[in-house]
């Protein structure tokens, strides 16, 4: 466990030194701040515009961090050949991958935390009261991003960084659309097409479950049981993807 934490710490230190991270963070905060300009163009809905734009920024910029840093975590070690010195020590490949995942997870948590703090303050300034529900929306976005981080790591264990980025972004798109698969299955096609659509629905990550922005901005009631199950689903799915990544990485030949 201590080896995993050491690698996680190293991965965290490595990622926070990455200049792209700061560019993304500054750009995200600027985008969240720019919602105050949009608000001046509207009549009504000022608070929700800030929250909607803020939560969308957190999702999109968190996605960029997860993808563009996640794809390089493993490939960079292979490219620089530092993986040989790492794996020659008593470190298992599984520990290496889990450590990398936790390190990037921590980086994501810190970045999302900064963006969420900015959004909370902005919403408070506009609405004159705290809206802690934003944190719930951000928490579930973090779970969604953990699944995508695991996916980026999985692809980076057997593919090039460019292809890994494309595949991970595609998983995000498919994951956000997977809820519609059921609708399409119900409306079109025969039994085999329906079965395929339903199979794909359960196989692919249903990322729309983690999108609570509608409920957060409109102050709609949320079922705690559904939230708990969604959190368990996200944790299990990320663990499953990371386990596949470990299985692939075990068979990887670095020569």
């Amino acid at each position, binding site marked *: 466990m201590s080896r995993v934490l050491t690698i996680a710490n190293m991965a965290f230190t490595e990622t926070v030194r990455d200049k792209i991270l700061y560019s993304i963070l500054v750009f995200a905060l600027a985008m969240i701040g720019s919602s105050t300009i*949009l608000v001046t163009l*509207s009549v009504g*809905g000022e608070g*929700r*515009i800030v929250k*909607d*734009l803020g939560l969308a920024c957190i999702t999109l910029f968190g996605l960029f961090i997860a993808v563009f840093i996640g794809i390089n975590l493993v490939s960079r070690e292979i490219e620089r050949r530092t993986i040989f010195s790492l794996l020659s020590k008593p470190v298992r490949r599984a520990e290496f991958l889990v450590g990398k995942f936790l390190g990037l997870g921590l980086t994501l948590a810190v970045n999302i935390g900064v963006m969420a703090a900015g959004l909370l303050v902005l919403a408070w300034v506009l609405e004159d009261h705290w809206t802690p529900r934003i944190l719930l929306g951000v928490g579930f976005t973090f779970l969604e991003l953990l699944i995508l981080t695991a996916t980026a790591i999985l692809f980076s264990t057997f593919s090039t960084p460019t292809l890994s980025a494309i595949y991970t972004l595609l998983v995000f798109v498919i994951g956000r659309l997977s809820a519609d698969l059921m609708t399409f299955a119900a409306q079109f096609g025969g039994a085999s097409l329906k079965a395929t659509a339903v199979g794909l629905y359960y196989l692919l990550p249903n990322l729309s479950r983690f999108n609570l922005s*509608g409920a957060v901005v*409109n102050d*709609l009631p949320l079922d705690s049981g559904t939230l708990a199950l969604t959190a368990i689903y996200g944790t299990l799915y990320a663990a499953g993807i990371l386990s596949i990544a470990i299985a692939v990485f075990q068979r990887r030949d670095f020569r």
Partner: protein
Amino acid sequence: MSGSGRLNARPPARFSPQRLTQVVALGIAGVALAGALVVSRGLQARAVTRTEAPQAVFFPRAEILRPALLGFTGLAADLTWIRTVQYFGSRIEGQERFPQLYQFVDLATSLDPYFLDAYQYGGLFLTIARQYPNAIAIYRKGIAANPLSWQLPHDLGRLYFLELQDYPQALHWWEVTDRLPGRPHYIPRFLIRLQAKIGHLETALELWQQMYQQSDNEAIREIARREIRNLQQQMRKPQAADPNR
């Protein structure tokens, strides 16, 4: 150190190839940027002199648009709503008609059926544009999607009362409002007046005063101010001349 000393001691060549390239590059940059500035000014002048033709906006159906938005439907509804406000604001200043106002409001509220402000202000904009059936359709759509929000039946009752003078319908929608949590304190008073078929001018005045106090928007406050002034003038006239009594 001695090497660099020798280099420094050598007199600099005035037109070395590197120096020449640098000068030419800076010259091209200066000419290109000055040209861009001239063209930009020309474009700006054309934009000012060209008369703005009204642009028809294509409205995709929300159910088709929704999957393409990848879950960012709330944000899309917000942006549509901002566009609606700009459309309404630009046309009301020019005293123009609002042929696409309903489509704007309908799209914003279809993308996010819980967007209360879009129903409320959208219904009000449609009322100001005298598109009463469309305003009623928006309020009814909002009431169906948000059955526990008192604001929408309240505003629909106000539309029936102030604009259409359909008092039975106004009574019905304020009765609905009265049953909902958080409804304003004046609703029972309105119901009593409507049931007794008295005091319509006082009710109208109170409604416009509420709108004046609650709205942050100067255009809406101005409309309310004008209506309050008209009603106060009517109320100063002898009661016998008041047809509502």
